[in-house]
């Protein structure tokens, strides 16, 4: 049996009286690629925010390889190996694409060590390898604001890869992409996922079908269902929460 890299136990998040996450027990195994789906407002992004320390939970535990990281500061959570991509692609617009990648690169996090840190040729080679993977190598010298929405998504995924996480949290990586770009992204995520745990939040079911083994459905801050793509698509409870839709497969 595979060991768990992440588990949440009785996780609760209440924001000004509204329960966003409601006693959620959720886990991801080492090396797993997990897809998280759920209607808007289900608490998917909040779950990522709680795991990465944007907020502390109201109650409950977040265990990373058995260690409770709930309420830790953000840089420490990054330090033990958790990186995220934001829902809206968040890159440094006025930095070049290469510089964006260099910020993501693991190491040199302390102010004093960054004073003497130099990008070596092996760092550059690594950055170039990842840029080739996300189709941005030719653009390395351009500033990031010249990228399209979809390309920014790729750049941010590339930056997250460069930070060498043990657990990667990707919030809606295909928003704003054409069908073709989405397919490329699906391939890319499967490539990345080989060696580490990845959790992807996504709405696009055709994309989900391409990458997912196991899906977790969240609804009103609770786990509604968990299983294979087929199981989830045929689950009547899941169909019900996606109002007005016969089946989840009809979701956009």
């Amino acid at each position, binding site marked *: 049996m595979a060991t768990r890299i992440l588990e949440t136990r009785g996780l609760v998040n209440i924001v000004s009286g509204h329960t966003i996450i409601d006693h959620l027990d959720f886990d991801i195994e080492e090396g797993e690629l997990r897809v998280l789906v759920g209607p808007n407002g289900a608490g998917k992004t909040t779950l990522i925010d709680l795991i990465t320390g*944007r907020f502390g939970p109201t109650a409950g535990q977040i265990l990373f390889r058995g260690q409770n990281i709930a309420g830790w500061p953000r*840089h420490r959570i*990054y330090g033990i190996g958790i*990186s995220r991509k934001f829902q809206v692609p968040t890159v440094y617009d006025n930095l070049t694409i290469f510089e964006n990648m260099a910020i993501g690169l693991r190491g*040199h996090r302390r102010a004093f060590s960054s*004073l003497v840190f130099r990008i070596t040729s092996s760092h550059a080679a690594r950055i170039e390898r990842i840029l080739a993977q996300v189709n941005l190598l030719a653009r390395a*010298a351009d500033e990031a604001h010249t990228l399209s929405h979809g390309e920014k998504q790729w750049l941010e995924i590339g930056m997250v890869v460069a930070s060498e996480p043990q657990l990667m949290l990707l919030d809606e990586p295909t928003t704003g992409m054409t069908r073709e770009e989405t397919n490329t992204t699906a391939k890319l995520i499967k490539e990345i996922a080989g060696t580490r745990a990845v959790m992807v939040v996504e709405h696009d079911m055709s994309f989900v079908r391409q990458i997912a083994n196991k899906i977790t459905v969240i609804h009103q801050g609770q786990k509604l269902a968990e299983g294979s793509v087929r199981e989830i698509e045929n689950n009547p409870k899941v169909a019900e929460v996606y109002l007005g839709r016969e089946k989840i497969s009809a979701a956009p």
Partner: protein
Amino acid sequence: MTGLTGLSRNQSIIALVVIGGFFFFPLYAGPFRTDQLGLFLCYVIFALSLDLIWGFTGILSLGNAIYFGGGAYFIGLALKLQYAATHATRYGEGAIPDFMTWNGLTEIPGWMRPLQNVWFAAPIGVLAMGFLAFVFGVITFKRHIYGVYCAVITLAESVIFEELIIEKQAYTGGFNGITDYGSYSGSVHFYWVILAVTVFFFWLSRKLTTTHFGMILRSIRENELRSEFFGFEVANYKIFVFAVAAMMSAVAGGLYAALNGIVSHQDIGPILSIEGVIWVAVGGRGTLIGSMVGAILVKGAQSLLSEQFAWFWDLLVGFMFILVIVLMPDGIVGTLLRRARRRRALAAGRLPAYDATRIEETPT
């Protein structure tokens, strides 16, 4: 050579010509203009320090003059104490500064005595300002205060210090400030010292901003939330650069006091802080050169126009400021650099950069 300065061959030549121009300036201009340029160079260092924290890191501080004025008061007071000690007859017995006598002090307070040695006062003043900035930085940045709130807090700090200086007149000279202590006015050697310090700080700022550290500062300016989730303890970077900038300002203030021969509450108050922001904005933030050009241009224009148009020169300066910001939101140097970058990008067959200021506030 390029290893030490990080400049290309052409840039090195330009830098040498500019430094040479400043170096030989006193030989052609009279002592009045030389002193004036010396004071401007102090403002240049002040603007450089502001560019480090605002232009590169995105911290809008309206309290940068605290550290400039603080450094100035340390030196002004030290020189005054020294002067009073050696000109006893002028101030009667006790050899204490005139403003202390007027406020009923009969001897120099014990805690102030170490400042009688200016060579002790200078480093202590700079370190004290660095420490003060460190404390203010911890209070502000560890609590994730940024943007407008940071500007308001630093402004308030500036106001507090100005009030303190005016209030504690027995020790500070109050509203009239500290005057009549014998300055380095008219000394070409002292002008050259200021020039050397300015060049050193430009070199230091370039070093700080062109290394990996500088790139991280810019990433914080662009989006500090993103940087936090990439494992950077953003507050530490801000505190560090804030303290370095404060010490630069303190050095500039000290030189200013020694050359100007008068220190007053205005040197520590919010007006100078805000003027600094204007210089950096006019020159172009985040460019270093821009902040220096901005300081000299605006101060120079103020001085020349005030000589010509005694009663409406400040209107002209204000109008110039508005014109530059409306026509060139990146500032003068910032706009020129962006155009050059655009040309190079097009020549290399790459996409041109946008044509607008792209430094934005961090989303919450």
